[in-house]
C-alpha cells in the first residue's frame, strides 16, 4: 500500500465514522463508542480485503463478514452504504419504526449483512459454521468476524474458538476490537480477559497483535492470516473507543449513548476537518 492508498482508506474511515454519528444522532440511541473504534477494521475489510460484490450481496462465492459485536453496526452500515449496498440516507432512519437499518444487524432486511447478530458471543459461532460450509464445499471464500473485548467474556466465544481450531478453520479470521471498555467500565476492572493472546494461542489460534487504527498493520495481519494453514487466526486489535471524535475517545459513557444536536454537529465537523486535511494531502 502506498501513502495515497492509506490516505484514501483514512478518508473512507472518517466518512464511516461520520455515518455512525449521523445514524446514532437520528436514532437518538445506539452505540457510537465501539462503532468508532472498529471503523478502520470495517473499512479495510470491505475496501481491500474481502471479495464481495455490492450489486450481488448473496453471491455464493463471496467472502463473509459477521459482526459478532452487533451493536457496533452504525459504522458497518456506513461502510456498506459507502460501498453501494444501499443509499447513504438510510442512515438517517437507523432504528426508526419500519426502517431497513435495525438496531442490530438483520441479514434478512439489510443487503450486505451476512448474519443477524446482536446477542454477544453468537456471531463467532455462525462465522465458524460459514467457514466450515466453505471447507465442505471446497470453496475458497474466507470468513471474517469482529468481536468486542467485553464480548470475549461470553463462554460461547471459547466454545467457538475450540470448534474453530478443532476443525482447522484456516479460512476464518477473528478480530477482537480491544478498545478496553465495556458498559460497566474498563474491561480489566469488570471481568478481566487478559492475557488474551495467550488464551487464543492456547485455544489453537495463530495470534497477531496490532494497532487497530493502523492500516498497514491491519493489512500485514490479514496478509499473514492468508498464509496460515491448519488453524484459524485471531487478530487482537488495540483500539481507542470513540476514535476520531475527541470528546468521545476513551470515554466509557459513549458506549451506548447517542450524540445530541450540538455533539452531533461538533463530531461531524471534527471528522470533516480530518477528511479535508487528508484530501489536502492528496
Amino acid at each position: 500500500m502506498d501513502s495515497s492508498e492509506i490516505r484514501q482508506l483514512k478518508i473512507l474511515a472518517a466518512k464511516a465514522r461520520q455515518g455512525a454519528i449521523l445514524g446514532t444522532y437520528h436514532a437518538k440511541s445506539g452505540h457510537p463508542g465501539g462503532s468508532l473504534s472498529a471503523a478502520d477494521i470495517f473499512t479495510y475489510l470491505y475496501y481491500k480485503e474481502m471479495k464481495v460484490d455490492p450489486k450481488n450481496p448473496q453471491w455464493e462465492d463471496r467472502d463473509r463478514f459477521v459482526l459478532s459485536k452487533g451493536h457496533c453496526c452504525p459504522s458497518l452500515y456506513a461502510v456498506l452504504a459507502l460501498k453501494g449496498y444501499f443509499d447513504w440516507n438510510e442512515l438517517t432512519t437507523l432504528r426508526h419504526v419500519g426502517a431497513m437499518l435495525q438496531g442490530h444487524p438483520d441479514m434478512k432486511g439489510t443487503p450486505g449483512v451476512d448474519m443477524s447478530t446482536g446477542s454477544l458471543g453468537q456471531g463467532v459461532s455462525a462465522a465458524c459454521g460459514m467457514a466450515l460450509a466453505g471447507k465442505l464445499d471446497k470453496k475458497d471464500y474466507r470468513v471474517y468476524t469482529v468481536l468486542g473485548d467485553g464480548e470475549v467474556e461470553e463462554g460461547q466465544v471459547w466454545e467457538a474458538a475450540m470448534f474453530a481450531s478443532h476443525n482447522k478453520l484456516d479460512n476464518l479470521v477473528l478480530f477482537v476490537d480491544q478498545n478496553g471498555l465495556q458498559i460497566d467500565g474498563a474491561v480489566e476492572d469488570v471481568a478481566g480477559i487478559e492475557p488474551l493472546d495467550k488464551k487464543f494461542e492456547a485455544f489453537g489460534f495463530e495470534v497477531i497483535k496490532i494497532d487497530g487504527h493502523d492500516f498497514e498493520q491491519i493489512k500485514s495481519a490479514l496478509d499473514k492470516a492468508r498464509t496460515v494453514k491448519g488453524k484459524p487466526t485471531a487478530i487482537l486489535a488495540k483500539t481507542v473507543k470513540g476514535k476520531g471524535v475527541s470528546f468521545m475517545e476513551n470515554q466509557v459513557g459513549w458506549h451506548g449513548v447517542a450524540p445530541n444536536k450540538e455533539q452531533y454537529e461538533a463530531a461531524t465537523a471534527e471528522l470533516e476537518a480530518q477528511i479535508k486535511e487528508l484530501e489536502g494531502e492528496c
Partner: protein
Amino acid sequence: MAEIIKKATRESFGEALCELAKDNKDIVVFDADLAAATKTSIFQKEYADRFFDCGIAEGNMIGVAAGMAAAGKIPVAASFAMFATGRAFEQIRNSVAYPGLNVKIAGSHAGISTGEDGATHQCVEDMGIMRAIPGMVVLNPADHWEMKAATKAAIEYNGPVYIRLGRLAIDSFNDPETYSFELGKGITLHEGNDVTVIATGLVVNEALKAVKELEAEGINARLINIHTIKPIDREIITKAAKETGRIITVEEHNVVGGLADAVCQVVAEECPVKVTKIGVQDTFGFSGPAWELLDKFGLTRPHIAKVIRDVVAEEK
C-alpha cells in the same frame, strides 16, 4: 393390521436422516457428544464427512448450524431436549429463528420417559419453550412411521423446525400403507362424539388403547393425534369442540406451555369448551423406569381411560 414395529423415535429419526441424506447432499448433522444417544450416530456411520461432533457445547453447536444454513446447507443439530432447547434457547431464538435460517433442531430424551436419569434430563418444557419463539415449527411424532414422515417433512420445509424425539422404544400404531403426514394437520385416529381426546407424541398409542377399551363400555371418544404442535391444526380442534364439547389433552410434557395450552388457545378463541389436561402437572420428574414413571404421571392406558370415563359421566 400393519406389523407393529417397536422402536424409539430417536432411532427412527436417525434412520430417516440417513435415508434422506442419500439424495440430499446439503444435509449436514451436528451433535453435542450425544450421537450414540440421539441416534445421529446412524447418520455418522454412513456420512462421516457430513457429520460434526461439536463436543459438549450446545450453544456453539446451534450457532455453527446457523452459519451453515446461512451458507446454504440444511443443518440438523441434535442433543437432549433439555440441552438443545434449554441451554441453547437463546442461540435458537436469535441465531436461527430471528433470521429464519433453515436449521432443524432435534431434542431427544424428551419428557419423563427419559427415565432413570431423573429430573435434570427429563425435559417437560421443550415444546413450550420452542412454541413461544415466533415462526418456529414444533413437531412431536408419535411412532416410527410418523417420525420418518415428519423428519422428511422437516427437511423439505424451508425454515427453523424443532422436532421432539423419545428415548423409550414404543410400539408403532400407524399403517405405513395408508399413513400420510401433512405439516400442521392433525389426524383423527378414532371417531366418536361423546368427548374428544387430543394427544401428542409418545403417549398417543396409550390414548388410542384407552379409547378402544371404552368402546365396549359404550363410550365413543374421538381421538386426534397432533404431531404438529405449531402451527397447530385449528380446524380439527374447533370442529371437535363444536361436535363433542369436552376436550381432554394428553401429553408427556408440562401442562403449561405445550399441547394443552395450544389447544386451550384455539378453543378460547373459536369455541370455548372445558379442557381437561393430562400431563405433567407443573412439577419436575424423578428417577425410575420409563413405564413406571409414565404410569405415575397418569399417562398410561388405564389412567387415560379413567379420565375419559369421568369426564363423560360428568357431562351426562
